[in-house]
């Protein structure tokens, strides 16, 4: 039986986010969902600051809007891990965005591989 991903402890989820080489930030600009690549500059359990790649204009004038930050790792099936950080933009200038976090969740696929795939023997 395939099990779904397991939750990560909040500290581990935040740690994954902080050490991610690339993340995605999505904001609803009032009409559309806009997602841009970002790099994490600093993060605590309450606030995260990111640098937006390519100086995207998405960060301009979006204070008080809900946003979602996502980072994940996928070196192998068992090493799939991800963090979903949600909150509100408290400051957005060109190139840098500060997000007040309301919820940080993480998941991991470690230990979820079906037994018959782990051993390489197909079930009858």
């Amino acid at each position, binding site marked *: 039986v*395939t099990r*779904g991903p397991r939750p990560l402890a909040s500290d581990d989820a935040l740690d994954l986010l902080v050490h991610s*080489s*690339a993340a*995605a930030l*999505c*904001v*609803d600009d009032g009409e*559309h*969902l*806009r*997602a*841009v*690549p970002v*790099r994490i500059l600093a993060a605590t359990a309450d606030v995260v600051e990111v640098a937006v*790649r*390519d100086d995207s204009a998405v960060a301009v004038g979006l204070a008080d809007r*809900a*946003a*979602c930050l*996502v*980072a*994940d790792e*996928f*070196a*192998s*099936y068992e090493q*799939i891990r*991800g963090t*979903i950080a*949600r909150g509100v933009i408290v400051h957005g200038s060109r190139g840098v965005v500060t997000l007040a976090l309301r919820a940080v969740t993480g998941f991991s696929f470690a230990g979820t*591989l*079906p037994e*018959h*795939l*782990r051993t*390489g023997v*197909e079930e009858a």
Partner: protein
Amino acid sequence: VEHSSPETLVALLPSRPAVVLFCRDRHGAPIGYPMTVLRADKDGALFTTYRKSKKVEHLQRDARVCVFAQGRDGEAPWCSLEGVASVWSPSAPQLDQAMGSTGGDPRVPPGMAEHVKQRIVEGKRVLVEVRWNEGA
């Protein structure tokens, strides 16, 4: 590089990029999920997830999505495409047709693709098919 072009996504896929499916929760706030792309072309993209997952609930309430992709080193091209998602359960022949000839992923063990297909046909998993908006 055109950041809103499906061609950018298609070109990125062989490098196993980080792909996130963003949608809206019941409050209308954005929420994203890392995903594996089963197939993508100029018209849309295909994903699979658990039928009982939260994202299915979100997509059935509000089908508007944004698919984001970038290289895992944070340096490669990136794209952000808007579209509309539909959630459906295919029969085995429909699944084969929908998936086409998708290549294997060396990061997952042999047999995983067939295992996932079986779960889709059994109805434990569903397909999430995104059609790009005009000019996405």
